[in-house]
């Protein structure tokens, strides 16, 4: 169940990153890549359950979610792709 907390943290980091870039105001997010590392591997199904609730009605809704293995410890927001 720690995926609920992790989804919330990821959601906040993504929004803060976009808010800090003034040229991205009002743009929709197309894709988000997460890094899933060891040993606290996040269960992707569970993470998406919580994440999809959080993004409803926001600029993140409908974004493609991708995951890459990370050798570092933790769960990362790696890259965000925003519409041009």
């Amino acid at each position, binding site marked *: *169940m*720690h995926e*609920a*907390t*992790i989804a*919330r*943290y*990821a959601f*906040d*980091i*993504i929004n803060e*990153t*976009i808010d800090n*870039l003034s040229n*991205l105001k009002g743009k929709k997010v197309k894709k988000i890549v997460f*890094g899933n590392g060891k*040993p*606290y591997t996040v269960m992707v199904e569970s993470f998406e359950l919580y994440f999809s609730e959080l993004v409803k009605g926001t600029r993140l809704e409908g974004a493609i979610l991708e995951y890459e293995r990370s050798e*570092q410890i*933790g*769960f*990362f*927001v*790696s*890259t*965000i*792709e*925003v*519409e*041009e």
Partner: protein
Amino acid sequence: MEIKVLKNVMIKNDAVGNDNRKRFKGHKIYTINITSSPGAGKTTLLENSLKYINKKYRTAIIEGDLYTSRDAERLAGKNAALVQINTEGGCHLDARMISGAANELDLNDLDIIFIENVGNLVCPAGFDLGENLRVLVYSITEGDDKPKKYLPMFNKADVILINKIELADICKINLNKLETEIREINPKCKIFRISAVNPDSLIEWDTWLDEQIGEYKKS
């Protein structure tokens, strides 16, 4: 347009954890995060250690539990302020929950906060609460092969209390083997062998904790 972020989501928790630590430090409050799997003996430890610790220090307990307040009820009337956190299914406490719970305490009137984490031998490892000391209560009834299986909990602990040692023979546990495995994972942690049901077995731990609190208050 692609934006590189490369941020560990746990920075969110760690930032609040560090704020908690500073806030408690401002009041010279020493905080202890007690972790373990369910039933290893966290509440029993608190019940019996409070008898010693409460003679010297003003104490509060933050009780983490999925749904009930059963542990808080056990600890009521022990001369410690109590705050209950129900995680409603959540498998660990996080730094924000502690920050919220601290708002319900009179921090000017406290020396120590014990935090009883949710019983779980995996998830609490990743979540700094802003504590000064992380304790793992490990019950030998769970076997002597668990340290490497549940590595993060064992290597993130400052203190490991090996509990229920009076049952070692019945459970066919080799305590030296268990300690050796813990040492391989976490060479720096302090280890005590206890029977939390028996207050006499806690004297060494209680005295050591008392010293840590004393040093912290001087610093």
